[in-house]
């Protein structure tokens, strides 16, 4: 036994913060007034209440309390004085709008109830989990409630007059507008007007993850500093060097296109190669994933260029080269490198393969990334030299998200006028002279031009909650104008846009002149192999938090990472073999939770201490990954001090890690990594599927007196009548599901699912109604063990270990709504019953909390309310906050302590759907039948509908050869079924 081993309760204790010590000595923070009461001898001796009196008082108070409880509360009902025409209490209104926070863009429909937004729906296109969760960020009580001057509240009039005066006094120095990439044409015009009014105005755009490599490379190749748009649906071969395009790379609409290009039914499925370091969401979905170190990327891309030019090349690329040769001008090569030279090589390959104007378009560019790091560097230098007179920031948080944040913060002192327009008093805003808080997207007017020719409009769906003002209005008022709404309307009317119609639709397209580009100039320089044995670092963004601007959103904090399945943390990802070499490990403790080693990470003069280590299968050997977006210090109560800030390491390449004593507690909701030889996810390859569509979809048979029968034809139970009326089914296509978790957030928003916090998740008490299971493949299979004549114990223990470079599958699992439900038969109080529409119903008010049903559920989808999660200080998230509670869906009950809950298949939406059909006297349309998960799925992996309607999509899917039931040998006849996973392996 090591006696030096210490256990840390958290980073605070490790860092020796004094608060830990104080708390340790003071177990009861609020002291009980025992001494005060008993110590007062005088008072004690005077008091002569006997034991008998005490009992009298006790009896009286009990009786009084009981009697008081008998009285019925009087409920007040307060109608509008003047009801707005469009509002009918109890009926939802939908408004088309746009979400863009400087990072994620989506055209959305906002569902409002009695004038408050409660849910984001896709406007027929795509979104992601952060867009879905943004509705909760609206009701964030950490938002600024009024403008600030030197961190003190102040009124708008004073702010405006002071800023205007200071701006007008500037003569020589520069005024800099530091913003995120701006998609809004009208905002750009306002910025131009602002620049015209004041002298020396410079507008600098930055992206939290810089894309200068691509932009500068295109400047050299085509003469325009623009990001191209990619059509992943048109590509037959996709080769991605580290670009996580399904989750975070560039735009967030690629997933939809990607899945559209992978439709096994049509026989056409793109072949996707991923050469990467960290196990990304995109890598997990790839047909073939090759592990490379970051330093190898340039060399491999050079080698691929050689191959395309018919020269000799690296052997690892042979399959890729063959595929590329077979599909001329039908491929896409992308790289996440921020090195201009590497991107020039990528351009050269794409040009050589003829991809431009076929799968990649530079004349119809994407506008989502326009940041310029060079200008930013100049800005910091100029600030240091005192050349900057005024700095106005918008949608950015440089003090947190720059790798040079420290220098920036110091240089900021040299700026005379510092104005932030942040929604929060964040890391940057707190250093500014003035904070002029912006509206949330859902309170704002606006427009966006994410892509060439495509425009969308943003409209407020709620009156501003606080005394905030839109950034555009602030700019306008500083140039002596006002009313951005009128400005915007006027701007588009001048361009001949039908304002009302466009606002109603949320988007419109314009025929514009194509971007003029120069003829392609190949300026690429081949890169030599720089592979080293050093430990290399690759920084990534998590699927949940992205760049961390929505850190204070508890939904996102609690969304488990698709790969590591951990939430409320970032960590150092490392492969099992590297960890072993360095003596690092992860282990499970007695309550089933995951713990891990702690290390210090050093890169040059940058150090981050006490970083937990998460062993991640698929991480390239002798590399590590760290996620940005965590370690915020001024985000708000949910986001503060969660994880560590990895932004300073943005440019770091090689790192040194040293193990430190102690262990770290993770909140990971899935600890088993493999399927242990079972076919939970049924999988096949495209070639096998084309030969036999039902390949891989084998159903177990049982010997009966009628001969061998598949499990679904052997039953002892009486059948429910499911042929009359509706039969609600949900199909989940495992080929289309990329595991992004958007549905989980959508479900959480729709169904009032509480956030439970890290400690509860660690105890496996997470409340999500749906989870996305992730399985890695293992080197050991049943077949292999037979060949090698292994014992069963050896076989299974080896099966538990995922491969070094595993294949990954994702499987969304929610209540399967079994039609022979194991949960229903064991409930002692009939709180869970079956409906005649194929749904397993859960009646909270009937549940007494025996949890028999959860124990008997083969899919483990039932969740128990261990605590009252709403209005409970112990769970200080949005449900314990008057403002946060406004996001709750009034059609769904907020569950109380001691009851089981689970997926209801959005019964409230089904009931509404049926009611609307009955009221209008028309049959239900298939497209209208939606659950929250299905309607938000950007890749259309989830399809919901009525299987008794022979025209429905779900009926077609139910009868597809790929359809299978999860754990079909149990024959519980689920209403939810899956489509086999098909990979394009050949």
């Amino acid at each position, binding site marked *: 036994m090591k006696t030096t081993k210490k256990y840390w309760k958290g980073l605070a204790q490790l860092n020796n913060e004094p608060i830990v010590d104080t708390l340790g000595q003071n177990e009861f923070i609020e002291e009980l007034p025992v001494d005060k009461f008993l110590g007062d001898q005088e008072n004690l001796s005077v008091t002569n209440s006997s034991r008998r009196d005490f009992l009298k008082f006790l009896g009286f108070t009990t009786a009084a309390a009981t009697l008081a409880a008998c009285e019925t509360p*009087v409920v*007040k009902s307060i109608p*509008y004085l003047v009801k707005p025409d469009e509002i009918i209490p*109890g009926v939802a209104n939908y408004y088309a709008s746009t979400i863009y926070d400087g990072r994620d863009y989506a055209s959305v429909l906002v569902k409002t109830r009695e004038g408050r937004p409660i849910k984001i729906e896709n406007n027929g296109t795509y979104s992601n989990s952060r867009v879905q969760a943004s509705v909760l960020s609206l009701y964030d009580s950490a938002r600024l409630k009024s403008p600030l001057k030197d961190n003190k509240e102040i009124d708008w009039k004073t702010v405006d007059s002071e800023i205007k005066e200071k701006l007008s006094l500037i003569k020589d120095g520069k005024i800099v507008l530091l913003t995120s990439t701006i998609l809004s044409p009208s905002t750009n015009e306002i910025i131009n007007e602002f620049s015209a009014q004041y002298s020396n105005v410079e507008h600098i755009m930055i992206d939290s993850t810089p894309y200068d490599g691509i932009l500068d490379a295109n400047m050299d190749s085509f003469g325009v500093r623009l990001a191209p748009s990619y059509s992943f649906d048109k590509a037959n071969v996709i080769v991605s060097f580290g670009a996580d395009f399904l989750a975070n790379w560039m735009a967030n609409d690629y997933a939809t296109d990607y899945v559209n290009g992978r439709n096994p039914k049509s026989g056409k499925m793109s072949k996707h190669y991923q050469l990467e370091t960290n196990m990304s969401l995109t890598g997990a979905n790839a047909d073939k994933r090759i592990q490379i170190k970051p330093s190898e990327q340039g060399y491999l891309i050079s080698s691929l260029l050689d191959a395309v030019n018919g020269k000799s090349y690296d052997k690892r690329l042979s399959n890729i080269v063959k595929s590329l040769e077979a599909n001329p001008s039908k491929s896409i090569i992308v790289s996440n490198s921020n090195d201009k030279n590497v991107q020039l090589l990528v351009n050269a390959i794409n040009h050589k393969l003829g991809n431009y104007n076929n799968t990649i378009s530079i004349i119809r560019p994407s506008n989502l990334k326009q940041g310029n790091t060079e200008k930013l560097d100049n800005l910091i230098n100029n600030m240091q030299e005192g050349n900057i007179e005024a700095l106005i920031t918008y949608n950015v948080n440089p003090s947190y998200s720059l790798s040079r944040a420290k220098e920036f913060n110091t240089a900021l002192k040299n700026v005379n006028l510092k104005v932030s327009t942040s929604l929060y008093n964040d890391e940057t805003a707190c250093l500014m002279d003035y904070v002029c808080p912006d509206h949330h997207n859902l309170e704002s007017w606006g427009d966006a031009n994410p892509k060439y020719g495509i425009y969308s409009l943003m409209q407020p769906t709620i009156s501003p909650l606080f005394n905030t003002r839109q950034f555009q209005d602030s700019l306008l008022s500083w140039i002596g104008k006002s009313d951005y709404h009128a400005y915007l309307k006027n701007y588009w009317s001048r361009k001949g846009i039908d304002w009302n119609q466009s606002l109603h639709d949320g988007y419109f397209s314009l025929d514009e002149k194509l971007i003029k580009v120069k003829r392609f100039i190949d300026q690429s320089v081949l890169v030599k192999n720089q592979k080293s044995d050093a430990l290399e670092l690759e920084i990534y963004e998590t699927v949940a938090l992205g760049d961390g601007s929505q850190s204070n959103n508890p939904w996102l904090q609690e969304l488990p990472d698709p790969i590591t399945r951990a939430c409320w943390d970032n960590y150092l990802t490392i492969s099992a073999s590297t960890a072993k070499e360095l003596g690092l490990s992860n282990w499970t403790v007695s309550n089933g939770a995951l713990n891990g080693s702690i290390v210090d990470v050093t890169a040059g003069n940058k150090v981050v201490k006490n970083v937990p280590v998460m062993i991640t299968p698929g991480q390239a050997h002798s590399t590590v990954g760290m996620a940005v977006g965590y370690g915020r210090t001024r985000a708000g109560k949910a986001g503060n001090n969660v994880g560590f800030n990895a932004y300073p390491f943005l440019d770091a390449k090689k790192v040194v890690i040293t193990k430190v004593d102690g262990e770290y507690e993770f909140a990971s909701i899935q600890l088993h990594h493999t399927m242990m030889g079972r076919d939970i996810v049924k999988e096949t390859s495209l070639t096998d599927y084309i030969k036999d569509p039902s390949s891989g979809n084998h159903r177990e048979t049982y010997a009966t007196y009628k001969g061998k029968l598949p499990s679904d034809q052997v039953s002892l139970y009486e059948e429910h009548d499911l042929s*009359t009326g509706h039969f609600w089914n949900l199909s989940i296509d495992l080929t289309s599901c990329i595991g992004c978790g958007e549905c989980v957030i959508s479900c959480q928003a729709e169904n009032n699912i509480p956030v439970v916090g890290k400690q509860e998740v660690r105890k496996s008490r997470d409340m999500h109604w749906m989870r996305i299971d992730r399985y890695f493949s293992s080197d050991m299979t049943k077949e292999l063990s037979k060949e090698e004549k292994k014992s069963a114990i050896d076989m299974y223990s080896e099966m538990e270990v995922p491969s070094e470079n595993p294949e990954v599958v994702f499987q969304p699992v929610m209540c399967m709504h079994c039609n022979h439900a194991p949960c229903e038969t064991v409930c002692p109080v009939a709180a869970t*019953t079956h*409906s005649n529409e194929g749904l397993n119903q859960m009646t*909270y008010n009937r549940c007494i909390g025996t949890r028999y049903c959860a124990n008997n559920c083969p899919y483990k989808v039932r969740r128990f309310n261990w605590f009252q999660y709403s209005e409970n200080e112990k769970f200080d998230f949005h449900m314990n906050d008057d403002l946060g509670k406004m996001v709750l869906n009034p059609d769904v009950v907020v569950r109380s302590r001691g009851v089981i809950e689970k997926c209801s298949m959005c019964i409230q939406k089904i009931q509404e759907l049926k009611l609307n059909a009955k009221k209008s006297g028309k049959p239900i349309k298939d497209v209208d039948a939606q659950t929250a998960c299905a309607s938000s799925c950007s890749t259309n992996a989830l399809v919901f509908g009525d299987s008794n309607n022979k025209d429905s999509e779900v009926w077609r899917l139910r009868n597809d050869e790929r359809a299978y039931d999860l754990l079909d040998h149990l024959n519980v006849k689920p209403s939810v079924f899956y489509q086999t996973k098909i990979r394009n392996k050949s």
Partner: protein
Amino acid sequence: MMRSIYSYLILTLAILFTSFNVAFSQEAVDSLAVQQGKEIFKTNCVSCHSIGKNALIGPGLEGVANKRKKEWLKKWINSSSDFIASGDPDAIAIYEEWNKVAMTSFYFEDEDFEALYAYLKNPPIQEDIVSADLTLAEDQGVRTSTKLMFIALFLLMLVYLLTSLKNKLKESLGQETETIPDTLLSQFNLFVSENRNVVFASFACLIVVLKFSFDTMIGVGVYSQYQPEQPIAFSHKVHAGENGVDCNYCHSSARKSKHSGIPSANVCMNCHTYINEGKITGTTEIAKIYDAVGFDPNTRSYIEGYEQKPIKWVRIHNLPDLSYFNHSQHVVAGKIECQTCHGPIEEMDVVYQHAELTMGWCVDCHRTTEVAMEGNEYYTELHDQLKEKYKGEKITVDKIGGIECAKCHY
């Protein structure tokens, strides 16, 4: 004997008369045009006119179709101001009589005007209220306590008769007679002397006590007859009953939403801009609306910059959060009358909760109410399937899943 014959005769006569009356009125009213006219009247006219004698904002319209010619009415309704300007003496007279307020112009299609005219010509004979009366009487019946009193009286009479009979017999035998208390006491002693009887009696007592406690307990949280005082003494009797304002005029969201909706003050002001007096307490109560919205009845205008005060009504029907109820489901899809659950609302000066609003009450109704499937395309296919499944049976709400838990609890 004679008495019962009389009563039968009267009852038969009454039934004959009622049925004749109903048949007669139905014959006259039963045309489509009148029905259409009624709808048009409800949507357009009812906020200012009653179909009876009562004057609201405009005059009561009883007998207007006989008083005025059809052409005259058409001109007046289409555009009263033009008509007044044309110098029609009758029109001017009405204009003068009603404070020089011209009627809103309604440019009805000819067909619609014909329907409206037909309705004005055949105004309804207070049928609605009669039928509601019947349901009320049926519903209440004879109270349980009265029944019990009758039984007790009957038993006492029986004791008296039997005792006097016994005494008569004893007298004739020359034995000593007993008073009634003596008999009761001796009988009681006889009863108690047997152990079995005591056990039986205590058992019976226990059952009665248990039944009583059960009834009391089950009544906890049931607030039928709850009749709180409201901030404004609004009378449904005056509005819905006497003036015949349609329920949906004020509770318009009952057709669209889960909430029936308490009307916002601007709905009140549709009529009360003009009507600022009431018969009993109306004047003070209407003034409370003016106070809430900031309206000056003297100048008939809203006070500028007035800080409006919301009206805090006391909610009468409180369903717990755990159960979902949708008005439009019942009113539109189910075609249920408001009175079915809310009772004779048009007779209530102060509204009280009529129904128990217990789950048993909901489920009972769902078990007996037929689904309104006729003419609703949503049900076409389902109806055929159900007819096949439940041959000859009534298709009640429970047969389409109306008593499943998750239809109301989610």
